[in-house]
């Protein structure tokens, strides 16, 4: 195992530190709360000369992602960071980065989208980008945000994938919360990420190539099918890289994290920092004999259908927690709920009752009493088989 150093850091600083160790060829970013802490810290590393990175302080997020696309096509290892409206402004180029199969790594510090204007955490920003063709990884705490950033480089640049990765952490809750973070030795990180060796690059004048060409009705469809296939190959690759990282650090990563699921009759599914609150509450409920467990998907894109349906196979009632609304979808539910329902239905698990809980929008607090309420509802659903309300709201004034 590699040497490591335990330190106190907030999540944004932990990601900036990982970026420093990765030492990318280029980083283009525009500041936006709560991501600013990442780019501000990293720009200090650039000013101090401790990284070799070309830092491009662009005029907008649209320019940031455009700059990343050009630099990545030119063969560089490229990173950026954003949040909320910044990610929304990138929109057009976010899709282009994925379609051009450019292994850009973007750190997203989740924040609510306007309006009303809000700087606090929810997942409306990255959930809106869920169909953009990027791999999406969600971190529960600063340690995971750090670890995921390093692994994201290897995942994105895997020759079978060449697909950009979005690495998320919760704005303020994780991003600005100081936690214990185990920082891996610089050289060990450098060896783990290695050197990016693209098969072809824009600046290789001896082997000229065209990037971003058009394709009409005669070719576009084939390119999209191929892009979708590449994402479907990501599951075993993410697992392999998570295992290799485990050998290096003692922290092995898979697609999901489960807690007390072995004999669980009910399950709560939630992404990111809220999993901590849910885990602590589940522990307390277990002590009272409630057969409930927790599933925290780490990877949301590609959706780990098989792993999720396997872990839920003996569960009769599931409470999904969504920190975003998929506006206009079934009963105004959240995006995680939609995918869980689809996965259970398509794999023939029609008898599992699933309910959705929208929570934490715009940074609204989630407290253990909310998780206890879910457990109470699930116990009632498990015993009666009856779902009173498909989509529920936690901590909302009604």
């Amino acid at each position: 195992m590699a040497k490591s150093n335990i330190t106190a850091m907030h999540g944004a600083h932990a990601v900036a530190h990982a970026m420093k160790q990765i030492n990318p060829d280029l980083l283009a970013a525009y500041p936006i709360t709560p991501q600013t802490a990442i780019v501000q810290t990293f720009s200090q590393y650039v000013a101090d000369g401790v990284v070799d990175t070309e830092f491009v302080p662009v005029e907008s997020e649209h320019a940031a992602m455009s700059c990343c696309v050009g630099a990545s096509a030119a063969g560089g290892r490229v990173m950026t960071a954003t949040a909320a409206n910044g990610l929304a402004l990138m929109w057009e180029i976010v899709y282009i980065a994925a379609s051009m199969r450019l292994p850009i790594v973007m750190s997203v510090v989740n924040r609510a989208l306007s309006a009303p204007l809000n700087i606090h955490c929810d997942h409306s920003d990255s959930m809106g980008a869920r169909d953009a063709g990027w791999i999406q990884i969600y971190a529960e705490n600063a340690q995971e945000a750090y670890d995921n950033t390093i692994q994201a480089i290897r995942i994105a640049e895997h020759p079978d994938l060449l697909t950009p990765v979005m690495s998320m952490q919760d704005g303020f809750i994780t991003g600005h919360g100081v936690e214990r973070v185990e920082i891996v030795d610089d050289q060990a990180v450098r060896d783990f990420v290695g050197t990016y060796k693209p098969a072809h690059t824009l600046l290789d004048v001896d082997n000229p190539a065209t990037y971003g060409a058009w394709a009409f009705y005669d070719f576009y469809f084939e390119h999209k099918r191929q892009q979708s296939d590449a994402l479907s190959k990501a599951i075993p690759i993410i697992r392999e890289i998570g295992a290799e990282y485990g050998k290096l650090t003692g922290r092995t990563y898979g697609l999901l994290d489960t807690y007390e699921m072995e004999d669980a009759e009910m399950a709560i599914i939630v992404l990111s920092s809220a999993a901590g609150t849910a885990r602590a509450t589940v522990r307390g409920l277990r002590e009272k004999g409630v057969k409930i467990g927790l599933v925290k998907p780490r990877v949301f894109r590609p959706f780990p259908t098989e792993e999720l349906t396997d872990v839920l196979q003996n569960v009769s009632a599931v409470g999904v927690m969504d920190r975003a609304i998929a506006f206009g979808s079934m009963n105004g539910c959240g995006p995680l709920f939609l995918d869980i329902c689809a996965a259970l239905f398509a794999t023939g698990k029609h008898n599992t009752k699933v309910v959705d809980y929208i929570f934490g929008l715009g940074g609204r607090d989630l407290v253990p009493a909310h998780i206890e309420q879910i457990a109470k509802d699930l116990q009632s659903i498990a015993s009666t088989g009856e779902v009173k309300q498909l989509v529920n709201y936690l901590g909302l004034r009604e």
Partner: protein
Amino acid sequence: MPNMKATWKEVSPGGVVHEAGNSVEYITGGWRTLRPLRDTEQCTHCMICWINCPDSAIIVENSKVVGFDYDHCKGCGICANVCPVKIKKPHSYTGEMGSVIQMVPETELE
């Protein structure tokens, strides 16, 4: 020539085109409704059409205009419009007076 029958497993990842200058293989002349026709005897090979053609569709060999690249000519008519040579006898194809290059509807041609 790109493989026009390439399956989704065979197309180039990310749509990168590895053959330099292969846009010549992409036939776009089918968009044309008017075809430029040149009176070869009365042409002075002044190259004004060659300079102005936006699609590099005027074929020149040994400093002489030898014809049009109809696989890529869109029939925009710029060549006919800029042709400065006023012919002294009727055009070899249209029988009209005017310039060396004249536009003829594709529907009137075989």
